[in-house]
Structures are given as structure tokens and as C-alpha cells.
């Protein structure tokens, strides 16, 4: 089953290495990964899309928690918002094609971010499925290149990914 996991980490050198290394070493299946800084200086947030059974996911969570620089791990099984961003460069030879592509763009609420004589770059935000359909819709017109980010996720409502309360150290 597909799971989206958010990980709050200290943004030390190689912390991403530790996480990807862990996935490689334990044979966990990583479908996508996105990293960025947060509003708290020194903390970064990583979104992972992982597939596996319940036992594997339990191990993913526990093994991530073993890393010293990992502050918090959440498997987004609860209601959450999930987004991916894609840039798609599509070939547009003539006016007719340009209009057809524009129809698709509007239907998906994508944006045109670059216009050239024979190509357009479209930007789309949405969940993975929406982006998949967008790419399929554009395919007949001649896609020149696609760049997708990994999925990013956030719980709905009051729930946040906070640092664990400080407990007595051993």
C-alpha cells in the first residue's frame, strides 16, 4: 500500500544521505522524496512516498526514528493534503495545437510559465493522480520534457508535525 510519510529533521550535512541510505540498506521501497526548509531555523522537512505492507511501514517508521537527527515521523493515514508540482514542456507546432493545449491547461487549472515559438512550459500543482492525467492528456501533442517534484503532504486541521516534548535524557 502507498503511504505518505513526513519527517522532521535537523538540517545537518548528510542527513538526507542517512535517510536514503537507510531505505537502500533495509530494502524499503521509496517512490518519491521531497525536501525543504521549514519556518524553524535548523529544521527541514522531508516527504516520502513509500509502498509496503503494514509490517514494512512499521519498520520504516521505527528505523527512521532511530536516526539521531530525526525529530518526528508521521505516516499520513489521517485526512491530509497532498501536492506535487510538475513542469511539462509541450511541443506546439501551430495555432490549432496551441489552442487545444490551452483547453487542457484550463481544464486542469495549470499555468503557462514559458512561451516560445514552438513550445510551452505548463506548471501544474495537484496530487499524483491529477498530474498523471494531465501528462496523459498532453501526450498526443508531443511532450518534450517533464519534471515532477516528489509529493509533499500536511495533515488537515490542528494536527502539526511538532518536535517531541523534551523528556528526561538517560
Amino acid at each position, binding site marked *: 500500500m502507498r503511504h505518505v510519510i513526513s519527517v522532521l*529533521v535537523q538540517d545537518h550535512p548528510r542527513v538526507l*544521505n542517512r535517510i536514503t541510505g537507510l531505505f537502500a540498506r533495509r530494502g524499503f521501497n521509496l517512490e518519491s522524496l521531497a525536501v525543504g526548509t521549514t519556518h524553524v531555523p535548523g529544521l527541514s522537512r522531508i516527504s516520502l512516498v513509500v509502498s509496503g505492507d503494514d509490517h514494512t511501514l512499521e519498520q520504516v517508521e*521505527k528505523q527512521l*526514528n532511530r536516526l539521531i537527527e530525526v525529530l518526528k515521523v508521521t505516516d499520513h493515514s489521517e485526512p491530509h493534503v497532498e501536492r506535487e508540482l510538475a513542469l511539462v514542456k509541450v511541443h506546439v507546432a501551430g495555432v490549432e495545437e496551441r489552442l487545444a493545449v490551452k483547453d487542457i491547461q484550463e481544464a486542469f487549472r495549470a499555468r503557462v510559465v514559458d512561451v516560445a515559438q514552438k513550445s510551452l512550459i505548463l506548471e501544474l500543482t495537484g496530487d499524483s493522480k491529477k498530474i498523471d492525467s494531465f501528462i496523459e492528456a498532453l501526450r498526443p501533442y508531443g511532450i518534450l520534457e517533464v519534471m515532477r517534484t516528489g509529493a509533499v503532504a500536511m495533515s488537515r486541521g490542528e494536527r502539526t508535525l511538532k*518536535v517531541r516534548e523534551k523528556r528526561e*535524557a*538517560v
Partner: protein
Amino acid sequence: MKGAEALLKALEREGVEVIFGHPGGAIMPTYDALYDSPIRHILVRHEQGGVHAATAYARASGRVGVVMATSGPGALNLVTGLADAFMDSTPVVAITGNVPRALIGTDAFQEADVTGVTMPITKHNYLVQEVNDIPRVVREAFHIASSGRPGPVLIDLPKDVQLAEFAGTFDVELDLPGYKPTTKGHPKQIERALDALEKAERPILMVGGGAQHAHGEFLAFAERTGIPVITTLMGLGAFPGNHPLWLGMPGMHGTVAANRAIHHADVILAIGLRFDDRVTGKVSRFAPHAHTIIHVDIDPAEIGKVVRTHIPIVGDARQVLRELLKGAKPLKLAAWWRQLEEWRTRHPLRWKPKPYLQSQEVIKAFAEATGGHAIVTTGVGQHQMFAAQFFPVARPRSFITSGGLGTMGVGLPFAIGAKVARPEELVIDFDGDGSFQMTLQELATLVKYKLDVKVVVLNNGYLGMVRQWQDLFHARRYSEVYLADSNPDFARLAEAYGIKGVRVERKEDLMKGVEAVLNADGPVVAEFKVYHEEGVFPMIPAGGAAEDMILEHPAEREEVEA
């Protein structure tokens, strides 16, 4: 003060008394500072010897072992030892030099990405980029290595950081927001565990290396409840080897009583162990009658990793046992004990006598001569299993072996580390001719520091464990296991180092040999030429279950039946 001096001062503040190591270019500033330091240094002849010695020092003493090496090849020679310490959850801090910061990433002389290489085999590691960070990094490294589930931590120090002027403070506070091991077991789960044990008809206690420090509480709990005790290879010594409640070691070469007890148990209390495949065999057939498995471990990731767990207790073995002890009652287990006694008396550990000297009788003779009062180290292979079977150590932290990684060659460096940690103890390294030759250069370390270590080489002229598997599972195709045609004369080899050499070849000379070893003033290398076709039994073939246990060599069984 230079970075190197700050490092040593920080180590002193952690209570470090001894460092095992080997110098080289990139760590020279620290070795220069060591010249004026009160910290003792043990110069080994190969960095691998240093990290194994530091590991055994930690295991024998309960303190953090420290090893130091230079960049590139020096640091990479630590890799096997770090992986070994990681697998067996041993607190070790490794300090390595690196090339100056400006040269990192340029393929400089003796440069290697040591933090990258050791990432998956250390609990944590650091590349220190700023000299004033040294006290904080050392503080964190020792804390991480020794708390929670212990493990190795590596600190990589570029040469120019060691040489930089230090202007920081040593009064650093631990700030590890992502690292807070749970040590106190959940009271509700502890209550459930006690309840399950009270209702149990066939309970067992299984104990691993994670309970070596909890031996007192463990003994009290076992004696109060009367539950039979099984100790894993790493748990040997955590329970007295001569205690009537002890059933022995489980798993591949465990006792019949221990394996049958697991097979028939209804409630299992497992403390500080990780259900290694050498213990469980085929997991789906492990402990099929256990309706309740209680797993106590300080590492939550171990709970539920291998076997289904009904009552998980995350916590330190000692703290949890103290809580369990509060509610522990004597259990009525007479029927269960009758069964266990029957297995124990009908199937004790034994061997088929041969006209040749045999490893088992050599180890047993040492065990009897010492009453189990020695620190035993081993290499890896048949001799290791024989030592586990026939040298029931009396006390905790006294059986120091490579469990998880199965690293051949640890015997001698482990003995060095153990002797440095506990100089008043008798230290015996039971080694194999194969294992011993992987690190025998450390005989020089015995000489240099006058370390009274007794090395007992059980020489069967083969890589015996591989040979045994080829015998049983590869149609006796003995591929590349024969050593006898090229082994050295071990006694004369010892003498070349200035160490007393002993050789015993005949059965009737066994006791004379044992006495020669134990009465020798100073280190000894004793070669016992043992039966070359010995097998370790009982044996559960890899991937098998308790019911698949082979009690003796199939060919020999036919002889008996015929």
C-alpha cells in the same frame, strides 16, 4: 590550546583512561598531544585489532571503548570492527584523522569518505568542521554510544581542525532533540506481562546481550518465579552457567532442553535480545505454542521486527526487571520442570569420544580447572560454539564473542581489550587455527604491554565450520577449507614473538597442557591438535526449526543403530 589537545581534554572529561590505536599522517597532531596526556595508549599492529580491543574493553567493563586511527586506510581498517560493535550493540567511540578540510573531496593522499562509508555501520557519526565544536561532539558521541541501545560512534577530525587554535568551552550541554531513549517500561504493559506469566503453564525466560548489566535483577526474578532461563550467545554470563534454572543456549547449536522449551513454551519473556535467525531458525515455525510473547527491548525497532509480539515493553532491561520483580510471585511449574528435567538429563551436551584429542574436552578441561571463573573470548566457527557449549561462564561480561557479525579473528584482540579492562582476571582466548591467523599480528601487542592472555588454538587443520556444512549439505565437497598443509607451527610462532609456546597432540597429554597454560607466568599460545573431522552438535540446519534438530552426525547415528 590546539584542537588535538581539546580533543584529549574532552576525552579525559568523559573518563577515558585508555585508547587503542595506530598513528598515521592525518592523526599526527592528536598523537603529538597524546605524548603529554595522562590517557594510556595501547599501540596495536593493525587498526582492526584496535577496534576489536576497544569493543571487548567496553563489553568487559561496561564503559565506552575508544579507538583511534588515521585517515583513509587506517580508518577503513576499522570498518569490520565498527560493524561488529554495531551488530552486538557495543559502546565504542572511534576517532579518525582526515585530510585537511581544503583537501576533502579532492582525492588527496590517504583520503577516503569515512563518514560516508561508516554511516550504515555506526549508531551515528560526525565530520568535525569547526574546532570549537570538539567538546560538544565528544560529549554527544559518548552519550549516544553509551545510552539507549549502545553502539559505535565515529568522529572524523580533519588534520587542520586538530591543529587549529581552540577558543571554545568544555561546558557543553547535550542538545539532541531527536534522541531520547525510553528506559522505563510502560507500567500497564509490565502489569500485563506479570499477569500472563502468572497464568502460564510452560513459561520461559530468554535473555540476550542487552541484559548483561541487569544480571542481578535477572537472577532475582528467575529465582523468585522459578521460570527456566535460556541465554543467547550474547547473553551467556548474564545468568550463572552453573545455576539449576539455566537450560543453556538456544538456536542452531543450542541445547536440546533450551530448544524444546522454546518449542513447547506457552509464554515467553524475552529480554534484551533481537531474535536473530541463528536463534529462531525458520520464524514461521518458531515457538509455535507460545500464545504470548513478551518482548522487552530498549530499541523499539526490534520489537515486532522478527517475531510477533503480544506484549511489547520498550525500556532498559534493568529498569523493567526491577518493576517486574515488584510483582513477581513463585509460580507452580512442577509439571513443566519434570518435562524440562527429562530433556536435560536425556540430552545433555555431549560428544562422541574419539582416539584423538577433541575440542570439546579441551574446553571442558579449562572450564573445570577454572570453575568457569575466567573471561573467555573466541574467534568465530566451531571452536566458538564449543566454547559456548562447554565453558559455562560464571559471571556477566565474561563471554566476549562476535555474535551478530560473526567476525573471524576477534579472539586475540578481544582478549587484549578484556585484559586491559580487567587486568586482575584470567583471560582465555579459545581460537581456531583459521580465526587466529586473521589477526595474529596482535601477539606483538601482548608482548609490548606484557598482557597475560592465554591463547588456546584448537587446531583441526580446517576451516571447521565451513567444512562441517560442506560435509552435511554439500556432499562432502571440501572446497577450499584445508589449512593443515600450510599452518605454521603455532608454538614456535609464539616463541618467535618471545611468548611461551605449548603444543599438545595426544589425548593423554590434555591435563598436562591445561596446567602448562594456566600455570604459565605471562602470555601463552597453546596449540591443541584436535580431531580434524569434528562436528558441532546438536544442530538445527539454517532455516529449520526445533523439530529439525540433528543430535549427532548422521553417519555416526547409523553406526549406533546398526
